């Protein structure tokens, strides 16, 4: 399982990355993360929405209510600003990733 602090830090770029592939709604976003991480990364249902709202407030995503099988569903879509933000985040994560790759070569034992 991934630690809470790491989850909190990575939520934003993950959501933006998922939305880069097309508009999506809350439940589906959570499912996608679960799927990709093989269940190692699980978001609490309640935490996703405040983050999504925050993103909306910051202008990184736009939203739209849509009708689906007689129910209302709120879809999120990434904006240009969101794409820029994602590029920036990506740069940062990659630099962190690069540092770890250097440090952990050859793969040290963690046991």
């Amino acid at each position, binding site marked *: 399982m991934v630690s809470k602090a790491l989850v909190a830090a990575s939520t934003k770029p993950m959501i933006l990355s998922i939305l880069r592939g097309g508009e999506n*709604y*809350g*439940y*589906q976003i959570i499912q996608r993360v679960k799927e990709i991480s093989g269940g190692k990364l699980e978001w*609490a*249902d*309640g*935490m996703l*929405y*405040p*983050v999504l*709202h*925050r993103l909306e407030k*910051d202008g990184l995503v736009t939203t739209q209510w849509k009708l689906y099988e007689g*129910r*209302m*569903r*709120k879809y999120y879509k990434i904006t240009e600003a969101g794409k820029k933000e994602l590029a920036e985040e990506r740069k940062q994560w990659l630099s962190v990733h690069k540092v770890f790759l250097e440090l952990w070569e050859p793969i040290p034992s963690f046991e």
Partner: protein
Amino acid sequence: MFDLKKEITNWKKTLHKNPSLEDGYIEELESHLRDKIEDYTNNGMSKEGAFKKAKEEIGDTEKISEEFYMTDNLSGSKKILWNEKSGILILAANYFKIAFRMIKKHKSHSFINIAGFALGFTCFALIAYFVKFQLSYDNFHVNKDNIYRLTTTKYATVPDLWAPGLKESFPQVRSFVRMQHFGETLIENKTNKFYDKDGLYADSTFFDIFSFNLVEGNARTALAEPYSIVITKQLSEKLFGKENPLGKTITFFDGDSKQNYKVTGLINNIPANSHFTFSFLVSESTNKAWWVNNWKMHQFYSYLLLQNNNVNIKELATNIDTWLKGKITDPNWNETVRLQKLTSIHLHSHLRSEFGVNEDISTIYLFSMIALLILLIAIVNYINLTTAKAVNRAKEVALRKTMGSKRSQLIFQFLGETVLLSVIVFGISMLAVELIIPSLNNLIQLKLDQNLLNFPLFILQLFGLILFIGLLSGIYPALVLSAFQPSAILKGTAKFSSKNFLKRILVIFQFAVTSFLIISSFLIYKQMNYVNSKNLGFNKDHIITFPLRSAGITKNLDAFRNALAANSNIISISFTANLPGGGDWGIPYQAEGKNQADVPEARWLVVDQNFISTYGMKIIKGRNFNKSIESDKNNYIINETEAKELGWKNPLSKRLSINYFNRKWGNIIGVVKDFNYRSLHKRIEPLVMFIPPDNWYSNASIKVRGSGLSSTISYIKRTWEKFETRNPFTFSFLDEEFNKLYIDDQKNMEMITMLTAIAVFIACLGLYAMMVHTLTNRTKEIGIRKILGAKLSSIVGLISKEFIILIIIANLIACPAAYYFLKNWLQDFAYRVSLTPLIFIAGCMISLVVAFTTIIYKIIKAANTNPVNSLRYE
């Protein structure tokens, strides 16, 4: 059975309880929940199990809102940095929000506050509008500052030779115009036949002096030629419809003669704020009356246009006096000239033979005072209510201060609130004024412009005033509120004194004003009642009067009288040359053994032998005129006052004569008991009655039985038509004409009564709200007292005592003030009721009772509350 729909609804309900979760958010969570449940049931779970699991995974509301708060506030990426300049805008928006929330939250309080204020301000605005109208009289004349009316200290009219003489002798006089009543005339054309009594003779200079709007015709020549006539649009429409009347002919029938007039001008209708009004003007050169070319007959309204440069009016009047002494050689002639500024005539002139009834400046002062008092009561209400409510906002203030609010910011906030409220009140009031003006016009017979928007400046002034009031009435509550100590309030150790000194003073003031108004309207009512029911010395009921109009009647008086007398419902018939209460001539006369200077000025009634019986007057000495005694045509009957002023204990042996009418010395054969034939504002004046030659008679007074009035009148009309075919029959009731003397008093009384009621209502509104606050603050005290065994009566006594004492003090202030004011007011009446203590006692009692009824219900309700309820949360 598990009901998914119901369970979801319940789940949503619990979410709604959390204030940080908005509707849209909950909606989204629901969608999430449903997706989850769908997934689980697709994997073979039961609906119930799926719901439970999904619900659990989403978490409880606490957890959700916590997450929400965390992301919202601690992400820190866009923290707002506090800065006073940009902050003030955010704060102002917050202030508005809070102000509207306060209005919404305390509905009854806000309603009382706004309604009381709006009612008071509406009254004020209406009266201000009325006063403004009264002050605007004759202001529309371009030359208004240089136009003066030439009068004497007694008469509004002067002889016709004065004004032209002045123009020749005094360079200060640029021009003049003279006017005289044309008299009632019958106008007849193809479609219409009607009497018009609103015409005037006027000099050709009329339009040089006055600025009435001449639509058609030439201002310089319109009134030059004889038999020229200028008519108003109203009359023109009546006669010619939409056609242009210029050059057309109008025929007047005066009794038996007829005369054509050529229309030389058309003017707009006379503005309502003109001190004189007319339907047509006939050129003065047409005037052939016997008093034309005269130095002594007061017949003409004369207006002088003076030079622009500052003319010393006092000096000019004195010089005119000296000049007149040179022109009029009669040693007994003794009059003093007055020059009245045109714009001050309407409110300041009360001479004999005025154009119409002028308003009195004291009435304007009276209404202005009442308006101000009502406004003050409303403002006091506002201050008291807001201050009382302050306690409830202590926590808000404390919190704001803790968060760094400065005192000046708090004052700004609270002032803003009162100003906002004032603006709301202003809107309501202006709407109300607009709606009320038509019925006010109706009620007190005014012609106020019904469209307020015609006076943008006036509206602006009122708006300025209400902003000022908003600030003024907000200052005290703002200071009180902003002075709260946050630490004491938040710790709960703050004490709010309910014995506020200023609050008490304000309540006393309010009720002093209300008592004052109640007492005043009582006395005014009593006086008017007295005036209406006072024995006038004659019986004005069931007397019909009408002008005789033409020779068809006046030449056949006896036959006309006999024809009328045949009807058994006609009790008595009298012909006169003038009517009591109408125009009575002030003509010099001689009294036996008296110097001319000692002869009192007397009124005249030119009557016949039936006059005294028709009017039900009482002869206290001597006898009535007798038709069979030939010498009675030369004799006189006088009233008590005339006998007294001549100093004659036994006037029956004395003699009078009137050189003016070529009447030789005649005996006084009777004395009638004094009767009031003019307004009771005036003292009874000396009066002399005599019988004139037959051809002087111009009016009939007929006493009829009260029953079958309409058939009697139609009988008179039929009889009239047998003698006279051209002139239609018109008549009036004497008592109605008489009541017109009091119309002003009557309408003033109605207005004052109404305003008093409103003032009382606003004050009670305030008292009621105050009581509600007092009770809220003392709920616990009452509860404890009840537990300790206090009876209902003692609790009611305890709470009401404080207020009753204030009201008694208020009454103690109101009584002397009212006494002083009413004594002055009564001075204006020659016959008046006395100022008995009863009026004051009754007035005070009423204000006490009204105040007590206002608060008693609330007190009893509070005192009846179960102490368990009021102390539960302690």
